[in-house]
């Protein structure tokens, strides 16, 4: 302590505050009070005096200012000796040099906290360790009396929206003063949120935009925005999310269940959940801020243990927000917080699109916590569309956020982790990256979720995203473009670090073999010091190696010696880098390459590539029959060689050539196994236990394959490894967020396992040491396969486990004698038999707690067939609707299924279905089917269980969903892909057209077309129709939703009616015109060419022109705007409602009629195949003609009903679609006035 004035300097006699540093002058600076202000004056020092990093000569200091003189950073405090007795005034001034130097990011946060405290508001940006990027003070809930009118308006928004009377209400609202003298700073953020929401509500209430914002909104909003430093008024991320919530119970947690929106617009479920979960997401990440600072400080201080601890906090938080908070955006209608995607699309989805041109948007890329993480993790670049937008939006951040993001870039945690080569740190750091960017991490989940939401949204008319400008129409598949962008962005985020693998060492294991020869291997992998922090239920991916015998055969089939050097493609280099000792390899000897390659079974893509490359007919026929999975690479190569293909090309070609081995055959992927162990909570795992079932089968004897013993690559590799007991393994931990024990350890758990499906449950049991009951039902074939396990015995002895084993091929059972489980007499049975026997007891366990039951969690792990049988049996134990009970179980998150593929040979057996069967199954009455990869699935029940919600499933019902399925990487995720088998009902039959062809006349001239192509054109058309039916059903389904709070869902409110009118207009323009003028016309042209050389190719155009010229058609198309005017005038709701019904029924019926006509044609193909032209050419032409006739009938019918309602075209003509930014009818942005 010193009294003022005080001199600061190096001279012990001259200075009151002595700074021992050569950089400090003897008398350096002076502190004094002048006019009640604290003033710092530089006394002509050599090296200068700095305040907040700026050199000063004289400066008035305010709290929070940072003084720096030489190496010293000075913090200071003003003490009033009258007011405090805590500090002894005689105590001497204490100073120490800044050592270690203060972390830049820490300085920013502390300065922000101090500044916000001092000024009494948080206008320069929320930033604190306690609340991260959220306000320290919860958002204000009211204005002073002078601005009460705004408060009152906010409660009325939903009602005004419902009746479409919102604009009138705002036109009549008084213009309130928002200048500082009328509205103090502390109300600015509330004003900004309120006025922003109001303005957007005004803009987007009706599908056609207003000419301008009313004075009552524009003037105060502009003033408030300018005061906040925003040149163009715009809704920011803060307005919409961070300052738009309140706690129901102020003392309760900041969590969805305890929050409400401060300024809801529609106040519907979609708005509430979407906004509040986004806010809670940021809240959940709050501790990450402090952890990032700790991590960087640990790097500066060279303290690996502290760095590990900080990274673990980040890892834990990322997992938490990804797996607990984000999934609350749940499209499942039975979920706790259901969020209907269509409702979202028509209300919340576009609400944030800026009103004024050039204004920033509150898109997800404006999240400050994401920017901070990107800076901390050293995102590579921002060059993509979304990346550039992200940089642009960050330019609008408040000061504290900008400073923080910049400061976080100053210390590199990545480099430290790389340089120290510490395997624990590396493991944890990679886990953080994976939790942030991985397929199952936050960005991966976001991408899949965004894809689902956008696909549904765009199909019901939304054509723009809140952020970057993605616009498009039905056929453009805009959601694919957005998705592609998100993939690029995720890649941009990935910093240049080594591959995300951990290395383990296998220990000797034991193998249990049954009489049949089937074996199971119990294996342990030592992962000590690898920083493996996994949760019970997680899987580990193992990189297998092919055995010597398979490699030898393949080398021989390639006519090589094995010593040839092969250059790797980038994909291969990345894969090989995951193997220890091969980090930098870009060339491998062929033999080594083959050890790492996926040699069996042959995948579909490899099979097709080989067809293209070699043109060997025998192989093409195998692939056409979908029998390639009965082959291994070496026997395919032998077949190709016999067919004349030069197999040596594969290893001679350069890596960039199509026929290079690395371009044809992919590397062996990580094969997943459930981890059958669990580390103590919060500690890293030292051992991973696995239970591996041997896979062996004989390929089928068919015209396209021959019988031969085949082995599973990974299971046999692991068996070899467990026999050796010291091999190093490349591993990857794969989290399974949907397969976790309940958070509450007291909740009972019921587990059903078949064979090696017991593995994850061994992990569960290791982790669940609490009071909760554990029941395990295990299905195996014979007593020899029952492996005694000390962990099971111990759990049972401790009263934590009840194990019940069903032997399917032996009359035996398992009993527990208090110490051990042992085989004794019993009867053969299956797990589903046991379920039926113990039905009452199980029901008690499974019944919801609210219903008097015990609310147990249920888990199933085994083959698809096993899982299906267990679920089927479970529906039987429920009094009442068992399937509905299961749906509820899934919605509650109480049912986890972990299905694995047990390859039992090719599944060509089973029913065959026709495209015409498939296409009919897309309604509630017919049921829902879809095709993926040539197989047909009944998804009628699955749509209630789908995590992405029922809309996405319905959207793809009745058609081939392969592309959509792959787009979201479902095929690459074994845990998802394997579940498909539970719903498979057969295959699509492949029609045979031989080499038939015909001549067609198109705009490109005369062409010869294979008959198969003509069939494909018909099928594409049917799928297009089915897709449109699905989209339209979802679109009009909006009328049954609760769109604003307090409405009766059965009422067709004006707000909903306008969307019906809009959807109908879109149906005419975006669906029907393209369908008729484009797709149907092409179909007709091609069919006419094949079937009738005497048909004038123009007759379709003539018929079409005649139809368009009919007054009926004109009336239908030109009267939509009349109906819209009626709706906006608001005085004839009866007629508007009637017209809406006419539109909905008419549009749906037209698509049905079209499909029915076209299916007649498709069926003709299915019956006659190669002879269809000769035998049923007339049927095809009639079917195409009927399709056009159906459109004609539609116009006639609709015109009649329109006239019946007394609606006319009233001269307005058909509205031209404005050059819009994509929102249905929502024209261009408003020009900014003045």
């Amino acid at each position, binding site marked *: 302590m010193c009294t003022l004035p005080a001199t600061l300097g190096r001279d012990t006699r001259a200075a009151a505050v002595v700074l021992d540093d050569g950089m400090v002058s003897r008398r350096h600076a002076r502190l004094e009070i002048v006019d009640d202000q604290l003033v710092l004056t530089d006394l002509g020092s050599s090296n200068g005096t700095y305040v907040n990093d700026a050199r000063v000569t004289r400066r008035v200091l305010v709290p929070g200012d940072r003084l720096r003189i030489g190496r010293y950073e000075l913090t200071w405090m003003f003490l009033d000796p009258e007011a405090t007795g805590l500090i002894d005034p005689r105590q001497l001034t204490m100073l120490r040099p800044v050592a270690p130097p203060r972390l830049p990011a820490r300085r920013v946060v502390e300065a922000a906290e101090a500044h916000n405290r001092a000024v009494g508001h948080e206008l320069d940006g929320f930033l604190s360790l306690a609340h991260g990027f959220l306000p320290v003070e919860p958002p204000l809930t009211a204005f002073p009396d002078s601005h009460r009118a705004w408060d009152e308006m906010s409660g009325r928004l939903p009602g005004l929206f419902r009746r479409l009377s919102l604009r009138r209400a705002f036109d009549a609202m008084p213009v309130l003063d928002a200048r500082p003298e009328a509205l103090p700073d502390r109300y600015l953020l509330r004003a900004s949120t309120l006025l922003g929401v109001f303005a957007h509500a005004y803009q987007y209430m009706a599908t056609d935009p207003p000419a301008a914002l009313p004075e009552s909104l524009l003037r105060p909003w502009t003033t408030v925005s300018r005061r906040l430093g925003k040149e163009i008024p715009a809704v920011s991320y803060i307005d919409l999310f961070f300052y738009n919530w309140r706690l129901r119970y102020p003392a309760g947690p900041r969590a969805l269940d305890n929050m409400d929106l401060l300024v809801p617009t529609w106040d519907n479920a979609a708005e509430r959940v979407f906004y509040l979960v986004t806010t809670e997401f940021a809240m959940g990440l709050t501790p990450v801020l402090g952890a990032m600072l700790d991590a960087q400080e640990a790097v500066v201080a060279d303290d690996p243990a502290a760095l590990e601890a900080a990274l673990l906090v980040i890892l834990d938080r990322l997992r938490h927000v990804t797996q607990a908070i984000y999934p609350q955006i749940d499209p499942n209608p039975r979920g706790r917080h259901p969020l209907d995607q269509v409702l979202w699309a028509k209300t919340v989805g576009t609400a944030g699109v800026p009103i004024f041109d050039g204004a920033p948007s509150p898109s997800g890329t404006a999240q400050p916590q994401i920017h901070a993480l990107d800076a901390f993790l050293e995102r590579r670049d921002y060059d993509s569309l979304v990346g550039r937008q992200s940089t642009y939006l960050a330019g609008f951040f408040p000061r504290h956020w900008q400073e923080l993001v910049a400061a976080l870039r100053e210390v590199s945690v990545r480099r430290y982790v790389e340089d120290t080569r510490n395997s624990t740190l590396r493991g944890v750091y990679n886990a953080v990256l994976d939790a942030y960017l991985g397929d199952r991490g936050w960005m991966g989940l976001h991408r899949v979720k965004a894809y689902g939401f956008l696909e549904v949204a765009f199909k019901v008319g939304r054509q723009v995203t809140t952020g970057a400008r993605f616009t498009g129409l039905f056929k453009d598949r805009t959601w694919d473009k957005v998705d592609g962008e998100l993939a690029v962005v995720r890649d941009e985020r990935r910093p240049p670090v080594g591959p995300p693998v951990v290395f383990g060492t296998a220990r000797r294991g034991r193998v249990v073999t049954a009489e049949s020869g089937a074996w199971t291997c119990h294996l342990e992998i030592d992962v000590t010091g690898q920083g493996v922090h996994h949760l019970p239920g997680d899987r580990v991916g193992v990189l297998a190696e092919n055995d010597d015998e398979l490699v030898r055969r393949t080398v021989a089939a390639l006519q090589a010696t094995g010593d040839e050097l092969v250059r790797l493609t980038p994909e291969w280099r990345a894969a090989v880098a995951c193997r220890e000792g091969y980090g930098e390899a870009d060339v491998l000897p062929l033999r080594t390459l083959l050890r790492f390659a996926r040699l069996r079974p042959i995948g579909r893509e490899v099979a097709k590539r080989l067809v293209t490359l070699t043109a060997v007919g025998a192989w093409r026929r195998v692939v056409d029959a979908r029998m390639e999975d009965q082959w291994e690479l070496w026997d395919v190569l032998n077949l190709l060689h016999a067919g004349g293909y030069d197999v040596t090309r594969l290893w001679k070609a350069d890596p960039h050539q199509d026929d290079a081995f690395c371009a044809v055959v992919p590397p062996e992927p990580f094969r997943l196994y459930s981890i059958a162990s669990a580390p103590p909570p919060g500690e890293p795992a030292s051992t991973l236990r696995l239970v591996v079932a041997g896979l062996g089968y004989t390929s089928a004897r068919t015209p396209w394959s021959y019988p031969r013993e085949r082995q599973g690559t990974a299971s046999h590799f692991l068996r070899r490894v467990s026999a050796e007991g010291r091999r190093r393994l490349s591993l990857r931990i794969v989290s399974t967020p949907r397969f976790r024990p309940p958070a509450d350890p007291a909740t009972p758990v019921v587990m059903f396992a078949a064979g090696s499906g017991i593995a994850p449950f061994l992990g569960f049991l290791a982790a669940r040491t609490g009071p909760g009951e554990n029941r395990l039902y295990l299905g195996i074939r014979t007593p020899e396969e029952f492996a005694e396990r000390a962990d099971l015995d111990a759990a049972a002895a401790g009263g934590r486990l009840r194990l019940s084993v069903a032997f399917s091929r032996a009359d035996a059972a398992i009993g527990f004698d208090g110490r051990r489980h042992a085989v004794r007499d019993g009867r053969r049975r299956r797990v589903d038999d046991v379920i039926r026997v113990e039905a009452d007891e199980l029901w008690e366990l499974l019944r919801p707690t609210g219903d008097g039951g015990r609310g147990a969690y249920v888990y199933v792990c085994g083959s698809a067939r096993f899982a299906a049988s267990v679920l089927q049996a479970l529906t039987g134990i429920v009094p009442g609707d068992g399937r509905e009970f299961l749906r509820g179980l899934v919605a509650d998150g109480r049912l986890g299924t972990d299905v694995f593929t047990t390859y039992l040979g090719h599944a060509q057996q089973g029913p065959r279905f026709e495209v015409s069967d498939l296409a009919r199954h897309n309604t509630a009455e017919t049921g829902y089917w879809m095709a993926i990869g040539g197989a047909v699935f009944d998804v009628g029940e699955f749509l209630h269980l789908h995590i992405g919600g029922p809309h996405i499933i319905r959207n793809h019902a009745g058609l081939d969903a392969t592309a959509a399925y792959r787009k979201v990487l479902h095929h690459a995720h074994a845990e998802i892909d394997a579940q498909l088998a539970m719903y498979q009902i057969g295959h699509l039959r492949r029609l045979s057209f031989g080499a038939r062809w015909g001549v067609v006349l198109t*705009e490109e001239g005369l062409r010869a077309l294979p008959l198969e192509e003509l069939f494909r054109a018909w099928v594409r058309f049917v799928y297009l129709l089915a897709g449109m039916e699905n989209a339209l059903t979802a679109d009009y389904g909006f009328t049954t939703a609760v769109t604003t709070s307090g409405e009766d869902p059965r009422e067709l409110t004006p707000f909903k009616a306008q969307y019906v009118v809009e959807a109908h207009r879109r149906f005419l323009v975006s669906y029907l015109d393209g369908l008729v003028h484009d797709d149907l016309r092409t179909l007709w042209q091609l069919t006419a060419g094949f079937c*009738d050389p005497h048909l004038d*190719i123009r007759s379709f155009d003539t018929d079409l022109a005649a139809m368009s010229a009919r007054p009926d058609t004109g009336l239908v198309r030109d009267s939509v705007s009349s109906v819209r005017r009626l709706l906006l005038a608001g005085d004839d709701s009866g007629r508007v409602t009637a017209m809406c019904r006419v539109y909905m029924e008419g549009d749906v019926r037209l698509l049905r009629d079209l499909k029915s006509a076209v299916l007649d044609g498709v069926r003709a193909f299915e019956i006659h195949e190669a002879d269809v032209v000769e035998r049923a050419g007339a049927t095809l032409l009639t079917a195409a003609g009927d399709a056009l006739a159906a459109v004609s009938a539609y116009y006639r019918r609709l015109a009649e009903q329109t006239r019946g309602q007394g609606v006319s075209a009233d001269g307005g003509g058909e509205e031209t679609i404005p050059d819009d930014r994509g929102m249905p009818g929502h024209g261009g942005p408003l020009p900014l006035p003045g």
Partner: protein
Amino acid sequence: MLVSDVMTAFPAYIRLGATIRRAAEMVSVSEVGQLMVLDHDGRFAGSLSEEDLVRAMLPGFDDVTAAGGTLADAFRIFLERGRALADRVVDPLVVRDAATVHPADELARAAIVMIDRGIRRIPVVDDRTLVGTLSRADLCRAVIYHS
């Protein structure tokens, strides 16, 4: 082995200004799909393929719609065009920037350009004088059959 060793030394040719009928006659008599074309000074001018002759007879979309719009009309126009073309000169159909080889070129060099560009018969030209043609059949005969 050189091009001159295996080429066909007396190729079928016509001159600029000849009628398309004459070209068709040459094609049918010589059973060669690719005619060589010389200019009025006897210098090599280019080549003319039977494919181009046939293509010239095929009607486009607008031709068909102008004549009735059915496939049957398209087939009729094809025949009519053949008749109409017969008396015209070949000049517009001649490909004048045809790839050529030199008699002293290596065979493999010729083979590569033929496969790469889908040429069935390539002119062998020495200082603007046509000295022969080299066909894929010539290559197969010389390199495989006589090996």
